[in-house]
């Protein structure tokens, strides 16, 4: 993919980093998964582009709830987009 097409995804990655160094610091917490939700979002955006990346990251956030067991979960293990 050319850089131009990837630009929106990079923008998303930038936003996640922005979150990490601002709100993420003001509201500290952990994550039940490895990699953490923010890292998952960054990886998903890089691998699948903005739209699918955002959907994957959103789905992951919903799964990172008090009733989930957590565990190891990489974006490439996803089964939403094949």
């Amino acid at each position: 993919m050319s850089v131009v097409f990837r630009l929106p995804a990079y923008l998303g990655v930038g936003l996640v980093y922005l979150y990490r160094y601002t709100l993420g610091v003001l509201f500290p917490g952990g994550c039940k998964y490895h990699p953490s939700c923010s890292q998952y979002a960054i990886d998903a955006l890089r691998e699948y582009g903005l739209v699918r990346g955002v959907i994957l990251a959103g789905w992951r956030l919903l799964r990172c709830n008090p009733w989930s067991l957590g565990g190891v979960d990489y974006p490439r293990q996803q089964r939403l987009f094949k």
Partner: protein
Amino acid sequence: MILFSPLSPLEDLLRNVLEWFHGTVGLPWAWAIVAVTVCVRLLMVPLAVKQIHSMQAMQAHMPEMKSIQQRFKHDKQKRNEELMRFYRDNNVNPAAPCLPLLVQFPVFIALYLVLRQFSRHPPGGDLSWFGSLVPDITAHANAHWSGYLLLAIYVGSQLASTYFMSTTMDKTQRTMMMVLPIAFVPVLVNFPVGLVIYWVTTNLWTVGQGLVTRRLVPKKAPPAPKRSSRTPPKEVAAESKDGADAKPADEKPVAPAQPRRVKRKKKARR
């Protein structure tokens, strides 16, 4: 403005809650903010209880976790993977989930919007905190010396709460999380004092919760009796000639001293 417009129902809701605390309960605005913050955290208490249970259950698996940490000492990623897999298999994940954290953001942003509205159109009533100490909670933190005092308290409480919250993070990340709040101060001076009150309250709540967790967790340390048999063997050896019955009777009176023993073990391990 356009960016925040989806949040205006939330702003209205928060404003109504604040007005209820101010008008019906009769709290000054600053204490109404504290009350709202406490309510949000109270809603999240069941979550903390769940985490405490998980941490207690984890105590039983300490030796296995230590061995995983030893085995993958130099491979951070593999270590985290194995630890997470272990948590999952044993259903003892001690980390906080991300989703409830997100619930706090809208409340926070709504509070910011309400306070901004208040500074434009003062709502009437007492806008100070602790009498004349903090004259106006809608003003920026740098408008009065007490704002700086509050920010200092904020930084302290933030560091303490990070210390308790980020137990599962690696060291570099933790250090970063400890340094950044100090770097934020120049930005935070432009925030309304009321928001700083919210932060201080929620951080202090986290610290209190962390202290309670600390207190509760080492109590249930199943491997403790096994190891603490280091000291009592003389008595046990002397008294247990007649068999196993003597042992449990002997153990019971020692039980209250258990937390202290756990501490000593920690020191010895270091």
